[in-house]
C-alpha cells in the first residue's frame, strides 16, 4: 500500500492555478532568482588556492606545545591517552634532568582514529596538548597517519591565539 502524503493524496494536494499550469512563466520566475544571485557577493571559496583561516575556537588536529627553549611542555602523565575515546594517543614516559622530571620519549597520535573531540586538551594539566587550526589531513598509507613528536611539536608562538582563547574560556 502506498503511503499517503498530502502530495499524493488528491483530496489534500493544492490545485494549480491556470497561471501555474502555463509552465513558462514559472520557469522565467526561477531563472530570475538564479540571475539575481549572480550579482550578489559569493560564498564559494576556491579551496586549494584560497584557504580558510579558522577562528581560535576551532578544533583542528591536536598538537604539542613547544616552549621557547625547544622542549615540549608535556610531562607524559598519560591523562590524554586515558581520556581519549578512540584510544588514538600513545605516550611513553622517561626521566629527564630538567625540573619537570618526566618527559615523553614517544608521543604518538593516530590521526586516522582521532575524532577531534578535544578531550585531550581539556584534561591536560599542563596545557601541553591543544587543538590547532590545522584541518588538512590526508595520507597515502595508514602508517603515515600516526604522528610522532616530530609532527606534533609546534612552537608556542604559533599557538598563541588558541592559548589566549583557552585562558579566556577558563576564567
Amino acid at each position: 500500500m502506498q503511503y499517503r502524503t498530502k502530495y499524493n493524496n488528491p483530496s489534500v494536494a493544492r490545485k494549480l492555478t491556470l497561471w501555474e499550469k502555463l509552465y513558462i512563466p514559472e520557469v522565467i520566475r526561477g531563472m530570475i532568482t538564479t540571475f539575481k544571485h549572480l550579482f550578489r557577493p559569493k560564498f564559494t571559496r576556491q579551496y586549494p588556492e584560497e584557504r580558510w583561516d579558522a577562528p581560535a575556537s576551532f578544533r583542528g588536529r591536536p598538537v604539542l606545545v613547544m616552549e621557547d627553549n625547544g622542549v615540549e611542555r608535556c610531562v607524559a602523565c598519560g591523562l590524554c591517552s586515558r581520556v581519549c575515546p578512540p584510544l588514538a594517543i600513545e605516550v611513553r614516559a622517561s626521566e629527564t634532568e630538567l625540573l619537570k622530571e618526566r618527559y615523553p620519549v614517544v608521543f604518538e597520535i593516530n590521526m586516522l582514529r582521532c575524532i577531534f573531540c578535544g578531550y585531550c586538551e581539556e584534561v591536560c594539566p599542563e596545557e601541553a596538548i591543544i587543538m590547532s587550526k590545522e584541518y588538512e589531513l590526508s595520507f597515502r598509507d595508514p602508517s603515515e597517519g600516526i604522528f610522532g613528536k616530530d609532527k606534533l611539536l609546534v612552537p608556542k608562538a604559533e599557538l598563541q591565539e588558541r592559548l589566549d582563547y583557552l585562558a579566556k574560556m577558563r576564567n
Partner: protein
Amino acid sequence: MPKITIDGRELEAQAGQTIIQVATENGIDIPHFCWHPALTVAGNCRMCLVEVEKTPKLQIACATPIADGMVVKTLSEPAVTGREDVMEFLLINHPLDCPICDEAGQCKLQDYAFEHSRGESRFVEEKNHKDKRVPLGPQVLFDGERCISCSRCIRFATEIAEQPVLTFVHRGDHVTIVADPDMGFDNNMSMNVIDICPVGALTSRDFRFKARVWDMSFTDSICPGCSRGCNIRVGIRNNEIERLEPRNNPNVNGYWMCDHGRLSTYPPVNEARIEGPLMKDAKGIQQHTDNDAAARKVAEELSKYSKDEVLLLGSARLPVEDNYALLKLAKEKFGKQHIPFITHIEGQDERLLLRADKTPNALGATLVGCVADGHYQHVHGENEAKKTVLELLRSRKIKVVFSIAGDFLKDPQLLEAFEDVEFFATCSSNDTVTCRRADVVFSTSAWAERDGVFVNFEGWVQQLRPAVATKYFMRGIDHMHMSRLDRFGSPFDKWARGNKRNAREAWRMVELVANNMGARWKYLHTEDLFDEIVKMVPDFKGMSYDSIGRLGQPIATKHGEVKEPIYKEVYQESTERIESVGSVIL
C-alpha cells in the same frame, strides 16, 4: 572473649587487639596511612580517627586497644570531620604532582582525598619545597615534598630489613627522611618500602616513569627467582612486563619480596628471546624451522642411540608438568626411572626470603621423579660410582642430549664436556650460550607466558598464571587479565600485533618428540598433565588447579596422608652434595 561494637555491628575480638585490627578482620575499612599489619604501630598519621563512646576526644584506631563493651563509631559526624581535618592538614604541603607521580592511580592519599576530604583547601600560602630526587639507596629514590611522614619505610628498615639506616630529620613541616650517608639503604629487601609507601615519595629506579598504573594489567603469579616462590603480581603493559610486586601470602612470603626476584626475573621475558625453533643445517648453521620438522629430527636422532648413550635433562626452572612429560618419555622409550636436573645454587640462604637455590621448582621436579644432579648414577645404576652430569659427560658415553631448559651451559667446564656430544637438542626461551651450541632449539614459553605448578622448598604447591600473551596464548580467549587497552583496543593496535612470541610450553615439544617416536600422547592443556600427575604422584593427591588457587596448598605428605617424605630427603641430600662438589654449581 571481649565483644565490641563497630558501627552498630557487634564483633567478637581477642584481648589485646586494637580497634583497626578488629575492623580489618571484619571487613570494615578504617582509612589509615601509617598503620601496616606487618609493622609496629606508630600512630603518627592520625588518619584512623574514630569516635569511641565515653571518651572525650577522637581516638586513633590503630593504637587504641579494645575493651569489652566498647562502642566505636567510624561514620559519626565528629569522626568524619576529624578525618577531613587530618586530610586537609596532610595536603597543606603535598605538591600537586599527581600527573608525574608513579603512585597516581594506586595512591592512598589520592583515594582518601576523594573519599575523606572536603575537596577544598583554605591554604593559600606558598608550599614548602624540599629535595625531589634523593637516592636513599641503589634502588630507591626519595621525593621529600610528597612524603607525609608516616614512617612506614623507617619501621620497615628497622624491623623487617634489620638495617636501621633511615630516620627523620628536622622538625615540624620541614621534617624529611634521610638515609645513613655511609651505608645508604642498600639491602636485598629495600624495594619493599616502595610498595608500602602510601604516597609516591619512594619510587623505584627500575620502574620510574615506565608506565601508568591504570594502563597495566596485573596477573597473580609466582616469582621464579629462587626456591622460595614468593607470590607476586605481574604488571603488564603493551604485552611487556613492566614490574613485579609482592602479593600477600602468609604461608610463603608475607607481604614482601626480595630485590633479586623483583629485578632479575622479568627482563629475560622481555628481552633476548629466540624467535622460533632453530635447526642446524648441513653446514652447521642454525636455520629457522618449524616445531614439527625439529621434533622429527630429534626423534630420529634419539632413536639412533642406545639408552645408555642418551641423556635426558629435566629442569628445576620449569614447572612440574614439563619435568613429568620428559620423565614419561624417559620411562616409555628408554626404560629409565629417573632423569637428572642440574641445580643452580649460588651464595647462602638469606635471613628472609631469598634462598641459595635459585631455581623455583627443585622440590617439584624431585617429587615427580627427577633427581638433582649428583644422584643420577647413584639411583640409576647401583654398580657405578656416583657421578654428576659433568662426570658422566666426561666419561664420553653420552652421545645425545635432550634438555627441556636452555640455561645450564654457562659453566665453561660443562660446555667443554659437551664437545663429545654428537647431537644436542634443547628447549629454551632465551638466546643463550646453550642455544648456540645446540643442534635443535625449540622456542619455549618463559615463566610469565604459561600455566604451571611450582613446589617451593617448604612444599607449598603454587600456580603460575600466564601474564604475557604469545602467538598461542591469547588474552581474550584464554581468560588472561586484560588492561583497559587490551579490552578496548582493536586487533590493529601495536600491543595486539607485535611482541607476541612464537613460543609454547616445553612439554608440548616433549609430546611432539614422543609422538614422533611412536607414542600417542594427547594433552590439550597443561592442566591435563597436572591431572595425570595428581593420579600418579602421591604428594599431589587430591589437588587441582582450582584447589591450588591463588595462595597454593601444601604437598599431601605434609598432612601425613602419605608417609613417604623420601623425595625431600633425597633433594636435600643431593643439594648438600652439589654444594660440596662445587664444579656443577651454575
